C-alpha cells in the first residue's frame, strides 16, 4: 500500500519525533479552534434557517412615537382578517418578566394543540395560577413553584415541562393562562402584545404588507418571516467571519513555525547532496518533503476536524452554547443541522491547510534546487 518513498519519508519523521509531534499537536488544536469558531455559528445558522420556516409569516405590532403599544384584540383581528390573502390571525400575549435566576419570557396560551407537543394527552392548559415551563427553568422549590415579578409579583404552580427537544425555541419560556399573563405583563384586559398572521402563499408575504398597514386605523409595523430570519441568522454569520479574522495571526504564526521547522531540517543538507549525487531528482526530494509534511498534516487535519465536529454536533454543544451565547444558567440543548459542515471544511482547507503546506514547500524547494556540489561542500565546511 505504501511505496518506499513514503516509508522513507516517515522514517525521516521518526528521526525527529518530538518536533513532528509538537507540530501535529499545534496544528490539531489550531484547526479544532478555528473549525469550532466557524462551525458552531454555521450550524446554528443552518438549523435556524430550517426551523424558522415554521414561524408565522408576519408579526404585526402597533407603534406610536414612544415605541410599542398593546393592540386591542377584537378590532385588530377584524382589521387583519379583512385583508385578502390572510389565512389566520392569532393575537399573542407575551412579555419579559423577572424570574428567580434572571429575566424570562412569559407567554399566555389558549391554543388547544399544546398537549400534543407535550406528548401527554392528560395535560391540561394552565389554569389560573398554573404554569408550564421550558426545559431550562430550574425550579428551586421542591413543591414546584415559580415566583415571577412583572407588573405584579406572584408565585405560580409548575404543572408541566416542555420537552427538551424543543429547547431551541422554548428553553426559557413560561406558558401561563392568558389572564395571568396579561396581569403579570401589565396588559389591559382585551389587549394583546402583537398579532401573528399567516398568509396563503409564501411569496405573498411582502406583497400583502401594504394592504395590512392600510387596513389598520393606527400606525403598525410588520416584520416578515424572511426579515426575522435575516436578522437572527445573518448576525451569526457575520459574527463567525469576525471570529475567523481574529485567527489570522495564529495561522501566520503556524506558517512561520512550519517554515522554520522545514528550514531546520534542511540544515542537514549533506543528506540532500548525497541523495542528489546518487541520482535523486529535485522532484523526488520535494516529494519526500511533501510526504513528510502531509504525514504530519493529514492526521492533524482529520483529528482537528473530528474534535470540532465532536464539540459542535456531539456532546460538546451544550458547553459551547454556554460559552458562545452567554448563558449563566443551564444552556439550551442544541440539535444542529450538519448541512453546511462541508463548507466549513473547505474554509479550513483554504485558510489553514493551504498556507501551512505552502510554507513547508517553499524552503524545501529552495534547498532541493541548490547545486549538489555546494550542498556537499557546504556541509563539509560546517
Amino acid at each position, binding site marked *: 500500500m505504501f511505496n518506499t518513498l513514503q516509508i522513507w519519508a516517515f522514517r525521516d519523521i521518526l528521526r525527529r519525533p518530538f518536533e513532528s509531534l509538537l507540530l501535529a499537536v499545534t496544528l490539531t488544536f489550531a484547526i479544532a479552534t478555528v473549525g469550532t469558531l466557524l462551525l458552531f455559528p454555521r450550524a446554528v445558522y443552518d438549523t435556524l434557517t430550517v426551523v424558522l420556516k415554521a414561524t408565522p409569516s408576519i408579526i404585526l405590532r402597533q407603534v406610536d412615537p414612544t415605541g410599542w403599544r398593546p393592540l386591542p384584540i377584537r378590532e385588530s383581528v377584524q382589521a387583519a382578517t379583512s385583508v385578502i390573502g390572510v389565512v389566520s390571525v392569532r393575537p399573542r400575549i407575551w412579555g419579559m418578566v423577572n424570574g428567580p435566576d434572571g429575566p424570562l419570557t412569559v407567554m399566555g396560551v389558549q391554543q388547544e394543540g399544546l398537549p400534543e407537543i407535550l406528548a401527554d394527552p392528560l395535560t391540561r392548559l394552565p389554569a389560573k395560577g398554573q404554569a408550564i415551563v421550558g426545559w431550562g427553568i430550574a425550579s428551586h422549590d421542591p413543591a414546584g413553584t415559580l415566583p415571577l415579578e412583572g407588573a405584579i409579583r406572584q408565585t405560580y404552580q409548575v404543572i408541566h415541562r416542555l420537552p427538551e427537544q424543543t429547547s431551541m425555541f422554548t428553553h426559557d419560556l413560561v406558558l401561563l393562562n392568558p389572564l395571568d399573563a396579561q396581569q403579570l405583563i401589565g396588559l389591559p384586559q382585551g389587549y394583546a402584545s402583537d398579532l401573528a398572521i399567516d398568509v396563503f402563499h409564501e411569496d405573498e408575504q411582502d406583497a400583502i404588507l401594504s394592504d395590512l398597514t392600510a387596513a389598520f386605523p393606527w400606525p403598525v409595523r410588520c416584520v416578515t418571516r424572511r426579515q426575522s430570519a435575516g436578522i437572527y441568522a*445573518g448576525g451569526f454569520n457575520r459574527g*463567525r*467571519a469576525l471570529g475567523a479574522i481574529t485567527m489570522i495571526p495564529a495561522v501566520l504564526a503556524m506558517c512561520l513555525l512550519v517554515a522554520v521547522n522545514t528550514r531546520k531540517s534542511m540544515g542537514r543538507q549533506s543528506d540532500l547532496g548525497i541523495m542528489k549525487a546518487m541520482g535523486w531528482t529535485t522532484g523526488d526530494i*520535494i516529494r519526500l518533503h511533501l510526504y513528510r509534511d502531509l504525514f504530519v498534516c493529514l492526521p492533524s487535519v482529520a483529528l482537528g476536524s473530528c474534535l470540532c465536529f465532536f464539540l459542535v454536533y456531539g456532546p460538546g454543544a451544550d458547553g459551547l452554547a454556554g460559552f458562545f451565547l452567554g448563558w449563566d444558567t443551564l444552556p439550551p440543548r442544541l440539535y444542529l443541522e450538519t448541512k453546511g459542515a462541508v463548507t466549513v471544511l473547505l*474554509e479550513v482547507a*483554504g*485558510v489553514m491547510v493551504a498556507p501551512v503546506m505552502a510554507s513547508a514547500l517553499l524552503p524545501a524547494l529552495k534547498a*532541493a534546487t541548490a*547545486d549538489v556540489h555546494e550542498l556537499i561542500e557546504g556541509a563539509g565546511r560546517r
Partner: protein
Amino acid sequence: MFWHPLLLAIISAQIVALLLLLAGSLTSLNTALHWQPLSADSRQLSLEARAEGVSIQGRAAFWLSVFSAVLLVFGITNIFAEDIPGAMCGTGVCQAMSPRGSTQLLLYTGLLLLLMQLWHEMDKLNRMLVEMPLTDITARLFLVIPAVAVLTLKQTYASFAGIRPHQPVDCCAVVYDQFTTLKHAKSILGLGDAFWISAFIVLSLALFSLSVALRTSMVDRPGIRGLHAIISCLWLPVASLTLVNIFSAYHYEVLHHHCPWCLFLPEHRLVGYPLYGALYVIGMEGFTLFMLPRLANQDITVYKKALDRCRRAANRITFAQLLFLIIAILPAIVWRLHYGVWMSG
C-alpha cells in the same frame, strides 16, 4: 465590506498561490534571460535544477488557483447569497457587487485559469522529455501569470469590498428587467429564438464532427485545428446564450426566467455545475488544442507529444459536449413528450 469565512479562504488561497508564483517568477526571469541548453556550465546546471523547482511551484499554484476559483464560484452561487438580503442566487450577489465589479472578477479569474492551464500543459509536455526543450518558452509564459494573479486578487478584494451586507438587492428584478415586452423576451440581440436554436444545432453538429475528426490523424493539419478553434469560439457563446434563454426554462419550469446563476441552486438539482463545467472544459481544451502545437513546434518529438495531447483534448471536448447536450436538452425533450408542446409554444 462583506466578510464571510469562505471569502477569507478564497483570498488566502489566492495569496498563497500568488506567493508561489512570485517566488517562481524570479527564477523564470533568469531562465528566460540566460537559458542555453547546449552549454554545460555551472550557471546552466543550476538553472536547470531551479527550473524544475519552478515547475513544482507552478503546479502547486495552478491547483491552488483552481481550488480558489471553485470556491469562488461555489460561494457566489450557493453561499454568499445567504448574507445579502434579497439575494436568492448568484445574480443577487453579483448585483450587490456592482455589475462591473462582478464581470471583471469573473473575467480575471477565467483569464488566470486559462493562462495557468496553458502553462500547465506546456510544462507537462516539457517534463516528458529529458532535454526539456520548452523550458525557455514556458518560463516566458510563466512571467505573464503573476501579473494576472495580482489583478485577480485585487479585483476579488475590490468586488467584495463593494458589497454592503445590509443594503437589500432584488435579484429577480434584474433578471426580469432585461426585457420590456414579451417579444423582446423571446429574442436575443434582436434575433428570434428560432435563429439561435438553428445556430446552436448547426454549430453543435460542426463542433462535434470536427472534434471526432481531430481524434484521428487529421489532428496534424493546422487548418482543421484553426477551424475547430473558430467553431468552438462561436459555439461557446451561442451555447451559453441558448442555455440561459431557452433551455433553462425546462429546468426552472418557468418561462422567461433568464437567470444564469439559478441553475446552480439545489432546487434545480445543481445542474449548473455539470453544464458550466462542460462549457469550461470545452473552452480550456479548445484553447489548449489550438495553442499547444503552435507553441511546441520547435522540436519534432515535442510536437508529436503535443499532437497526442491534442487528440486527448478532442476526446474530452467530445465527451464534454455530449454531457452538455444531454443535461441541457433532455428536460426539454421530456417536457415535449409529456405535454406534447414546447414550453414557448
